[in-house]
């Protein structure tokens, strides 16, 4: 098993990587830093697991060379769990990427990062409800201070592939939407 860290540029993915592996990596606050991806090892339940920091991408329809790399890396590692890092103050944007990855059949765990920024902006997210709707683990985190990381690591094992139809149906889409 491998773990892929995915998410938009500037959501703090590299700080995640730094915290999870303790390795030396670059984290820079401008787009396009992590063009050469980083690899490291993290411990989950007494086991060493490979962690790959995938370059930031907005969607799985690549717009530039760095995004192409991200999509290729996802496809090359079919047996991975994807930790999808979202900017909690811009959940909708991040959910788009998360849904795309879920649709491809990968087990996903969602980190609602920059939780502090969202709080500053007076945005509150019901993480428990979001988890119930999506059927994948959802963990609020603040990478810069390290909050939520223990929980994140402990919940990686709960990530399982989810059928997108189930999510659509639970939101009253599909057939019932056609009726209404």
């Amino acid at each position: 098993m491998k773990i892929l860290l995915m998410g938009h540029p500037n959501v703090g993915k590299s700080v995640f990587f730094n915290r999870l592996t303790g390795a030396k990596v670059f984290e820079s606050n401008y787009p396009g830093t992590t063009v050469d991806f980083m690899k490291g090892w993290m411990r989950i339940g007494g086991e060493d697991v490979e962690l790959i920091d995938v370059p930031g991408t907005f969607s799985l329809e690549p717009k530039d060379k760095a995004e192409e790399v991200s999509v290729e890396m996802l496809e090359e590692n079919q047996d991975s769990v994807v930790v999808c890092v979202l900017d909690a103050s811009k959940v909708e944007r991040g959910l788009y990427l998360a849904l795309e990855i879920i649709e491809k059949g990968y087990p996903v765990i969602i980190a609602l990062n920059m939780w502090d920024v969202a709080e500053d902006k007076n945005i509150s997210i019901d993480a428990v409800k979001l988890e119930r709707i999506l059927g994948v683990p959802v963990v609020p985190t603040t990478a810069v201070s390290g909050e939520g990381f223990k929980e994140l690591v402990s919940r990686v094992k709960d990530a399982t592939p989810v059928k997108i139809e189930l999510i659509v149906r639970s939101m009253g889409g599909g057939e019932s939407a056609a009726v209404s």
Partner: protein
Amino acid sequence: MPLSVDERWDLIDKISKQTVTFGAYKHTLKDAIAELTVKPLTGIPVAIAVIYGFWSFFCDFAGTLFTDGFMVRLFDEHWLPWLQSVFPGGLGNPLYALMVDAGHIENGVLVASDTCFESFGVLTSGLFVPFGVVLWAVVAFYLMFAILEDVGYLPRLAVLVDTVLHKIGLHGYAIVPTFLSLGCNVPGVTAVRPLETRKQRFLMITLLAVFIPCGAQIGIMQDLVPELMGWIFLTLAIGYLGFGFILNKIVPGKSPEIIMDVPPYQMPMWRNIASKLWIRTSRFLLVAVPFVLLGCLIVGLMYLTGAMDWLAAVFGPLLMGWFGVPEETVAPLIAGFLRKDLAVGMIGGLMEQGIMTTFQVFTSVVLLCIYFPCLATFVMMLKEENWKEFLGSIASLVAMVFVYGGLIHLVGIMLGVA
């Protein structure tokens, strides 16, 4: 079954309605600072202040404190005289010339060198250039750069310069690879990847490789000719914008707008900055030091075997006639293929021997900047561009060097200083 784009957004809309609530928006201090640094009226003065602060720190910390304060004294007053007294052979001996001091001819007599810029031995200049001067410049540059990166200032700078850079077919984002290249061109070339079209990447790589001097080079220039730095930067900036404008007109392809993400300001993580500084500095030491030593050795051997004199005789007329620099400049130009910092150091040596006028020093320093990227950058360009683009970059490079080098000479003649 994958969803269509609309279905996906529709689903997200429903999900967020149930899980996300937006409270009243508070205008925080962070927002206020963010706005002040992006709006032109306040943003431009802030940008000038930031760059000025950057430069002052670079000069004072690296140049004045470390290089002039400690290293020049250590190397010129202790290390060089000590080696001159203990190294076997003495002036005129080939091994001594290679390792310690080649000396130079003054009034027909071979005399010993006074400084580590002049001596040009592997153990003298070869160690002085990387450890005495460049290391401190690199540390100072990357420390400041890492702080600017982590705070999140660079995307704001990109927004500010967007309009100007659009005139040369680039996006404001281009300021990031440009700035990064001022440290070292190699990561600068890698950082062009987020530019969308091949045309933009080609323009950017070519302009970087030609007009942006690296930190090592700037460190040495600042130490040797601090009074000329303004003119050198001005000349390079004019070249960067001017040739960017021309290339944008003649290179086929599009330069679309890129929508760039401007992240919120944040407190830098010191551990992050320290680790970045360490990685970049150690990479410099690993890559640069062997090349500087090798460069010293090759140039020394070329002098000893007479190859350098031969090259000087062959290229002398071109250098003198077209660019207006003495034939001795051929030696730094050869060394510059390997390391630009070493090459600028050699010009310093020539300067101290009194071979060059101020204008010639200026011209040759600018020429060194633009005539060819260093070997490491060259290899990186090969990796990032396809063959056609690579040949295109090299062809534009040659054309730019001849046109711009000739132009500088012409201006010099008209001003009566060449």
